């Protein structure tokens, strides 16, 4: 059943295009950096981390993960989760799929598992492609990062990371980003069971990232109290691995928050789907 679902999803152009677009993003980013000034300092994230990309290929995955975690990765995850059930309904094949002697819960679990695996592959693809492309372009060297927050005009706070250490941090960072995508994944999946139009489920999932960004005290006065509970706000905390000493505060809170969102959304999806009147 899971295998059938994998084969079905893999044959859809949407899956292949999403993967290809994410891999191409890392490559294009590398080419753009090397073409327009790999020797200049890039400010990454809110810290900010100051990195000269040309000094090490391992700067590219840091930049690529930073620049995809707030929109492009949520979009990819929402595509896989939002397509899962609504895609069948949109094709009109859901009722036939459910006519097989399989419980709805098992069917939903299969859909969930396959969409989850595809999403995780999409998330891992970004740093992996970026490490390869970056290393080819700029070489396998130590990564030097200046902490932009702690540095002053007269004194730079510099940290030097060995390639192996950067890879280790990137692994943890990718896992953290993947965990941070789960609220969006679960919400898209819930919408996917509610609607028969995949596009609505995808757009709804992406809208969670918009909610996070709109209810941000940088733009809107008086919402600072809500910020710690926004589904996508603190997904950038992994950048604090690359300051010395590494800061991990807030990460556990964010992961617990993701668990709460996932339990609520997936619970609602399950309750809804096992009782739903399937018309398409």
């Amino acid at each position, binding site marked *: 059943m899971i295998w059938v679902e994998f084969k079905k999803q893999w044959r859809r152009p949407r899956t292949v295009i999403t993967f290809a677009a994410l891999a191409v993003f890392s490559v294009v980013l590398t080419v753009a950096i090397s073409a327009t000034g790999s020797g200049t300092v890039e400010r990454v994230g809110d810290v900010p981390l100051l990195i000269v990309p040309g000094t090490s290929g391992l700067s590219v995955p840091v930049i690529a993960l930073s620049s995809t975690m707030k929109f492009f990765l949520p979009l990819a995850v929402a595509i896989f989760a939002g397509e899962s059930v609504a895609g069948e309904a949109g094709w009109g094949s859901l009722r036939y799929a459910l006519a097989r002697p399989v419980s709805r819960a098992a069917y939903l679990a299969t859909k969930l598992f396959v969409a989850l695996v595809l999403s995780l592959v999409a998330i891992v693809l970004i740093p992996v492609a970026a490490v390869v492309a970056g290393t080819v372009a700029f070489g396998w060297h130590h990564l030097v990062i200046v902490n932009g927050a702690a540095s002053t005009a007269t004194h730079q706070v510099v940290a030097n990371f060995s390639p192996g250490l950067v890879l280790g941090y990137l692994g943890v960072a990718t896992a953290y980003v993947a965990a941070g995508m789960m609220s969006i994944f679960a919400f898209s999946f819930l919408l996917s069971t509610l609607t028969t139009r995949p596009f609505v489920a995808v757009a709804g999932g992406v809208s969670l990232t918009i909610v996070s960004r*709109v209810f941000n005290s940088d733009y809107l*006065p008086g919402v600072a109290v809500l910020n710690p509970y926004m589904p996508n706000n603190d997904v950038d905390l992994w950048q604090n691995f690359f300051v010395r000493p590494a800061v991990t505060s807030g990460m556990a809170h964010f992961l617990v928050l993701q668990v709460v969102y996932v339990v609520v959304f997936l619970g609602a999806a399950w309750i809804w789907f096992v009782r739903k009147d399937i018309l398409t």
Partner: protein
Amino acid sequence: MIGVELVKQLHRPRGWVTLGLVAAVPIVLVLVVGLSRPTVAERLGDYGSVVTNSSGLTLPLIALSAMLLFLLPLAVAVFAGETVAGEASWGSLRYLLARPVPRSRVLASKAVVAAGFSVATVVVVVVSGVVGGVLAFGWHPVTVVDLQHTTVFHVAAATFSAPAMVLRTLAAAAFILATLASTFAFAFFLSTLTTRPFSAVAGGVGLSLVSRALDNVPGLHALSPWLPVTDSGTTAWTGFFTSPPQTTDVVHTLVVQAVYSAGFLIAAFVWFTRSDIVA
């Protein structure tokens, strides 16, 4: 034709609901700011910072600044995206076009009315902000701290009289409208492509999201000046509130908007005048 379209849209609740919601946002902000943090300085874009309860005339700026990230693009995309796709989803598009009027005129009148509602949206935000702000905090001059020139040792600030603030706020509102033009034009173009208004609206908002996401990629700076929606472009109006005004990005932003808007609108007209209408 424009009159017919205007009457039709005025009878639909959508426009009124949208305008009502955007009018409510500054009022809510007045309440939040008045109740919880009246003396806290709020930051506006890259250039200025204002102390809220010093004058009610800060409220329209704070409201515009808060809404231009998402709510204003959404409102504009709703008006533009509903135009043709709305008719198509009702199934009334083919009857509309059966009238002895060229398709380009039908499309032009829809564009004009949707643009009118979009202008009204920004005007409503400004008026609601001014009225709510002045009622709560009064009609006083505003002191804006110039963030770009303020250091630890020196606070650079400029004070504007109340009428000068109103004039500059109107200029800012006009500029913000211009930065919404590409979103409007793209949603309008999508509206001629699809029969589902939701897709056109989401696509229009999606343009601003994708554009901002690309704008914020470190390493793609070369691309930023040519994107339709950027952080520096949409907040360039905050430079109006320094003395002297800083208008570095303004002309460039307007040119980029004009090019994108023209491109999408031409595409909409070319497509719509040739498309096979089945809905």
